[in-house]
């Protein structure tokens, strides 16, 4: 019995031998870099005080980050990164659970395993054991990184445990989602939705929290206590070090796993609580060509990317004036911002520009995803079905590029619209022009990614996803974070985002944008030429 369990756990470990180490190293590396970076940028108490007062004065910052707990460097570190770490730990676990539970059943591989003496219960049990082990390693890695960055031992341990606890709750969420939904895609949707809901609930609790009289800390309101990420934050590592909230995490994780187990032992292999619903017997008139298909397959994710763009738009629109107000004009944040944007224009313009660079990254992501979907169509063989009809190769490629362009425009437009509305809501409608200009300025860089990844797909189709996402991560790192950690200037010039026009009213210099748009167009043409010359892969 133990033998079977061990074998199955090792099998899962082997299948994830790249994925899970990358997740854990990224999360741990993020902790380390953030700790070191924060030490360099906010070394003095005066700087930290300004930052924390800015946060407690603006619910939107607390919504994104968490409740500040004073001006100590370690407390500030937790305030800055812990919410994001919770999201990452949650996603890692729901994906892990769905990958080894629902996806296995959906593909039929689970039936192969269940036909051996491992039977029906051991494979899911081994997934939970394995996931638990991964979370223990995550907790140790995070604690180790806090410690290595010079923080104290007990706080580091509390932080690690709190994050591991978030992981275990979402392992349970992934298990329940796998029992509920018939497809791994739907189960992953439920999992991601649950993580975002947890982030949003604690965000609301923190935004509506009670700020202390000195403006240096905040007590979260009750919605934070509905969220597993909230429970982790309520341990207040380094300041209070209280493990009590994690009791909730353990109880909820156990309950979720128990529910998943009860469903599992009562259902057939391959069945689910919510059966995959029936759909239309005949296609909508809009589903009549390659473009209709590309749009149909991608609009849900484009909607999600656009919501992300809108979230940052709200952030930019509601905070721009606060940043530009005089008491911050000479603070470290001002230096930071003008460093990022080349120092031209007002502080408000600079801030809006930085926020829209992030929206631009999201837009570039949505563009890359369109080409990655094209690659998936080819690899899964549905591309063969399409290209065996009178659809031309050019028509197929252009459909996906057109959806990519639409995604870029929609993401940036949602960001701009959200910024315009939120700036009006906080009584600073004059920000609207800056926001629209900053959004338009981001279009060329995103299109450049679309064209470049399409060229990669045309030449080296199997590297599309790897090179595409890799290039985006590298460009973000070099263009946005490179200077913060002291890389030389020329490395920043490698990133397309560095060359996006800096909005400065009528004086805006559009050269970089025009050049990038030209390169994007040339790359699109190159992609269609190269694609015409190669065999269709896969199938």
């Amino acid at each position, binding site marked *: 019995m133990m033998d079977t369990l061990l074998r199955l756990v090792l099998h899962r470990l082997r299948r994830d031998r790249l994925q899970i180490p990358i997740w854990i190293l990224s999360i741990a590396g993020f902790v380390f870099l953030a700790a070191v970076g924060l030490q360099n940028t906010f070394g003095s108490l005066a700087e930290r005080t300004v930052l924390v007062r800015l946060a407690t004065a603006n619910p939107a910052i607390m919504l994104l980050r968490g409740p500040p707990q004073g001006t100590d460097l370690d407390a500030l570190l937790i305030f800055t990164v812990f919410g994001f770490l919770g999201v990452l730990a949650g996603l890692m676990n729901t994906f892990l659970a769905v990958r080894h539970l629902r996806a296995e059943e*959906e593909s039929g591989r689970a039936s192969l395993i269940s036909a051996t003496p491992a039977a029906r219960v051991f494979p899911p049990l081994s997934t939970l054991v394995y996931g638990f082990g991964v979370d223990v390693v995550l907790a140790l890695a995070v604690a180790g990184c806090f410690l290595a960055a010079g923080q104290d031992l007990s706080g580091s341990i509390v932080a690690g445990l709190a994050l591991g606890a978030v992981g275990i709750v979402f392992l349970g969420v992934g298990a329940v989602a796998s029992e509920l939904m*018939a*497809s791994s*895609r739907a189960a992953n949707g439920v999992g991601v939705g649950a993580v975002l809901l947890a982030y949003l609930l604690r965000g609301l609790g923190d935004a509506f929290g009670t700020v202390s009289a000195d403006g240096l800390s905040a007590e979260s309101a009750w919605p934070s206590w509905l969220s597993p990420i909230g429970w982790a934050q309520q341990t207040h590592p380094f300041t209070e070090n209280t493990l009590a909230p994690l009791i909730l995490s353990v109880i909820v994780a156990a309950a979720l796993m128990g529910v998943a187990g009860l469903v599992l032992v009562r259902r057939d292999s391959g069945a689910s609580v919510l059966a*995959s*619903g*029936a*759909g*239309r*017997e*005949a*296609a*909508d008139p809009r*589903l*009549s*060509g*390659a473009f*209709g*298909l590309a749009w*149909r*397959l991608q609009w849900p994710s484009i909607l999600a990317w656009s919501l992300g763009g809108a979230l940052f738009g709200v952030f930019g629109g509601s905070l721009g004036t606060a940043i530009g107000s005089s008491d911050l004009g000479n603070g470290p944040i001002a230096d930071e911002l003008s460093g990022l944007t080349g120092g031209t224009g007002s502080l408000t313009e600079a801030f809006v520009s930085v926020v829209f660079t992030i929206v631009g990254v999201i837009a570039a992501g949505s563009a890359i995803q369109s080409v990655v979907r094209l690659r998936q169509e080819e690899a*899964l*063989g*549905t591309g*063969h*079905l*399409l*290209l*065996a*009809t*009178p*659809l*031309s*190769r050019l028509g197929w490629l252009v459909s996906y590029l057109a959806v990519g362009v639409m995604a870029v425009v929609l993401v940036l437009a949602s960001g701009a619209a959200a910024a315009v509305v939120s700036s009006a809501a906080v009584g600073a409608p004059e920000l609207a022009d800056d926001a629209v200009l900053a959004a338009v300025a981001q279009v060329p860089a995103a299109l450049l990614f679309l064209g470049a990844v399409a060229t990669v797909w045309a030449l080296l189709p199997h590297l599309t996803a790897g090179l595409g996402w890799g290039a985006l991560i590298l460009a973000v790192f070099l263009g946005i974070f490179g200077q913060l950690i002291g890389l030389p200037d020329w490395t920043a010039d490698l990133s397309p985002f560095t060359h996006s026009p800096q909005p400065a009213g009528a004086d805006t210099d559009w050269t970089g944008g025009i050049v990038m748009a030209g390169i994007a167009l040339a790359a699109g043409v190159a992609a269609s030429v190269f694609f015409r010359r190669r*065999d*269709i892969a896969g*199938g």
Partner: protein
Amino acid sequence: MSTVISARDLRKYYGRVHALDGLDLEVAAGDIHGFLGPNGAGKSTTIRILLGLARATSGSVSVYGRDPWTDAVPLHSRMAYVPGGVPLWPTLTGGEAIDLLCRLRGIQDPAAYVARRAHLIEAFQFDPSRKGHTYSTGNRQKVALIAALAVPAGLYLLDEPTSGLDPVMEAVFRREISAAVADGSTVVLSSHILSEVEALCDRVSIIRAGKIVETGTLADLRHLTRTDVAFAREGLSDDDLRAIPGSPDLVFDGTRAHFTADSDELVDVLPALAALRVRGLTITPPSLEELFLSHYGGEETEAAPRTRRQARVHRAK
């Protein structure tokens, strides 16, 4: 009869792996051409080249007199394709996938299409309202078959089209394909299911290791193997048996005697058997299966490496 498909000395190399190694193929208009071969012989590669999805390394190929690589779009408006093991879009229903593919192929007469689609969905007992990821292998196959048959095509390229279909549905498939050919269509049916090829095809090409090793009508091909003649041994002397023409390979199997004869010798054999008044006589024509096995029976080809691994071994020699 005009030629629909013509391939000469077609070669397709993937590195050192020779998927096609000098393939010749002729398909005449109105034929159902069986394309027989074991897994990995090059059937799918040939069909991918005929569709312009892959380009031949060398050799010439034409479909309706045009190059499928450069003229794919105009050619595809006259063709329909059914792969073996049909991939579907997980979030699209079967009905949506059928409509999408047919709209891409070009629906000339919407009313006729609706009627034809309804007829095929009924005939194949297919539920078009389920999502792509919930269909079994056979049901996914039905999506491609219905999409191929719902809009009439001049040329059907069917690559193991019945994988996963039950025998009842295979019969429906045969009926619908026969009807399409009666309306003047040409069919290339790649398969390793011999009964299906025997039941449907006028002509057969047998492919092995990227080459056509035998081609002709089923009657032509039957000439290549001998007919089995068997009867009860009881009451016959050795001299009687030796007197039968064409009986040097005579063997005894329990109470029965067996020998084989070429199909054109058979007319000389029958009077001799009648004169001996043999009992329990059976004459079995060669099946495609025997023909097939005689071409694939055991021995390995030295000509070209079939796999990357073989290519490495080949290179090492």
